[in-house]
């Protein structure tokens, strides 16, 4: 069924699981470990995997995030491709040493250039009342620490395509699924070779006036904002970065050099968030192309409240993105 151009509408998390299942069929070195994965996963991504691949390869564990990622690092050094789902990116802080020192540095510090494949699923972002310890968008950590790749699928098709790319990648990948998209549906290619290349962004909506760089949960809000702005005659180009490590600088600079204006939109906290790095690099690489300062629309620098209305008040709304679009054109 390799070259199959059929599409199917499915849940974002199911698409992630489909990518995983397809790769497990052809690569016996892949195994899945996590809390509840043997019974389909907390959020359904691992549904059916244990039935198909057995309890040797789809393994439940207790509450032990450091163990989960540490054992993934050890298994990957000896040639396995472990997939760990921590359920919430927030818990990755418990496995900080294992993610950033072991997965990210083991090859480097021992000077042995072996492939180290591992996919750590770290769902990020608000999901409606999950509170300050279950809602963080901390994908910037994977940008700060060297040695890892970081992907952020913004729709079901990418959830599949990036999962498959991550499983074929000889470097550890932090796969940040987006909590709020988990149960949204999208069209997904059934082609078992459908891959979204790591390090390649995509223009979701072309525009001549300003470049809006975003990813994950903010792609849809940015597209909505762009429609409103278009009614006012402002044409914003929306780039979905899809990977944060490496960033697609060719795509970013081609766009910014054409529009001469850039905004970065993300749910993560503003201070020292991914937008800070992206903005800094744009001005380093294309300062004389810019007509205006680079703007950031980002999460507020506060712990995320559990109350739904307050939670939403902490992350960029469509209105805020629209306002930023108007503002950048007025500068």
């Amino acid at each position, binding site marked *: 069924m390799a070259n199959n151009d059929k599409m199917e509408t499915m849940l974002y998390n199911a698409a992630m699981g489909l990518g995983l299942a397809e790769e497990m069929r052809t690569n016996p070195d892949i195994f899945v470990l996590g809390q509840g994965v043997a019974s389909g996963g907390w959020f359904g991504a691992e549904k059916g995997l244990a039935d198909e691949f057995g309890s*040797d390869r789809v393994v439940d564990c*207790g509450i*032990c995030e*450091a*163990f989960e990622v540490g054992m993934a690092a*050890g*298994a990957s050094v*000896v040639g396995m491709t472990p997939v760990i789902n921590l359920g919430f990116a927030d818990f990755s802080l418990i496995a900080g040493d294992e993610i950033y020192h072991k997965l990210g540095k083991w090859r480097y510090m021992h*000077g042995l250039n072996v492939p180290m494949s591992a996919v750590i699923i770290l769902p990020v972002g608000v999901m409606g009342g999950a509170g300050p310890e279950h809602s963080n968008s901390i994908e910037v950590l994977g940008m700060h620490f060297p*040695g890892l790749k970081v992907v952020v699928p913004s729709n079901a098709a990418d959830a599949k395509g990036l999962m498959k790319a991550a499983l074929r990648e000889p470097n550890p990948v932090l796969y940040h699924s987006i909590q709020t998209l988990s149960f949204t549906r999208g069209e997904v290619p059934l082609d078992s070779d459908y891959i979204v290349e790591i390090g390649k962004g995509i223009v979701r909506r072309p525009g001549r006036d300003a470049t809006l760089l975003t990813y994950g949960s903010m792609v849809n809000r940015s597209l909505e904002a762009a429609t409103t702005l278009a009614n006012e005659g402002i044409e914003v180009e929306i780039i979905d970065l899809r990977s944060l490590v490496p960033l697609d600088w060719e795509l970013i600079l081609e766009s910014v050099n054409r529009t001469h204006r850039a905004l970065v939109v993300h749910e993560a906290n503003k201070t020292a968030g991914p937008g800070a790095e992206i903005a800094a690099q744009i001005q380093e690489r294309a300062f004389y192309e810019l007509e205006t300062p680079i703007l950031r629309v980002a999460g507020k620098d506060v712990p995320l409240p559990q109350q739904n209305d307050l939670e939403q008040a902490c992350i960029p709304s469509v209105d805020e993105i629209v306002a930023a679009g108007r503002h950048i054109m007025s500068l």
Partner: protein
Amino acid sequence: MPIDTTLIGDMYRRMSIARAIEQIVEKHTRKARISGWWHPGEGQEAVGVGASAALNGEDYLWYQGRGCAWAIGKGMQPGPILGDVLGKVSGATGGKGGGVPHWADYSLGIMGEGATLGSVYPLAAGSAFASKLRKDGRVSLANFGDGTASRGTFHETMVHAATWKLPLIYLCENNELLVGTKLTDVCPTADIADFAKGYGIPGIIVDGQDAVAVYEATLEAAARARAGEGPTLIEAKTTRVQGHYAGDPQNYRAKDALANYRDPLAVLAERMAVDEVETIAAEALALVQAAYEETLAAPPPDHSIIFKDLYYGQ
């Protein structure tokens, strides 16, 4: 069954090499700086060498970085070890490493060290898990100090390794010290092997000054692991002769701390003929001296190594 005399000679040779490296590094650090700290392993050589002798070449070793007896025991030559200590291209890491070692050689089953102590427990479980899936008959060994038995990863890992009966050995070197803190000031038991009870696995205490005792205990644990019977915790009671790091004034230590110390080389020599002992010791010294001179002559790494190995193929 009496232990093979060739094996005893071989263990004595490896322990002598490790000891000679200790002495040469110690001497070197008195007149010149090295990158990082050397953590002397003098007095503890029987543990790494004895345990490694019980492992097969392809078994996985994840060690903690005191001394170099584990690396020598598992087959690394003095050159790559000294190369890293002195920051030369001849080092196992090409000279990136230093006093906190990151020697690895996957062809020898030497998988490396995690200098955030306690980080190798889950890594060793990872390779053990791989072996269980692949049914390759390999054993994984996680080495650690008594002070590192208090890490949460010790528990997280063994809970799962014991449940899944992974082919894993925990091997603790109990020298009763973590830096200058006495183990019993920070641990409810003086015997780390006690922890095994909670996991329902064997907890074995051995004389860490006797390479043969360590060898035999490890051989048995490895056989259990290979038979699918799960992990074993071995605690080797040993003595740290030098300071925590080379140059440590050790103000925290009693004057008579070494009153009962038994040199593991002397303990093993009791099982050997005198002339064999002398020949092996002299050969080890000459080997290490030659490696040291070669290391001194080797160049430091080019700065381009800074970006090497960050990503695969880079």
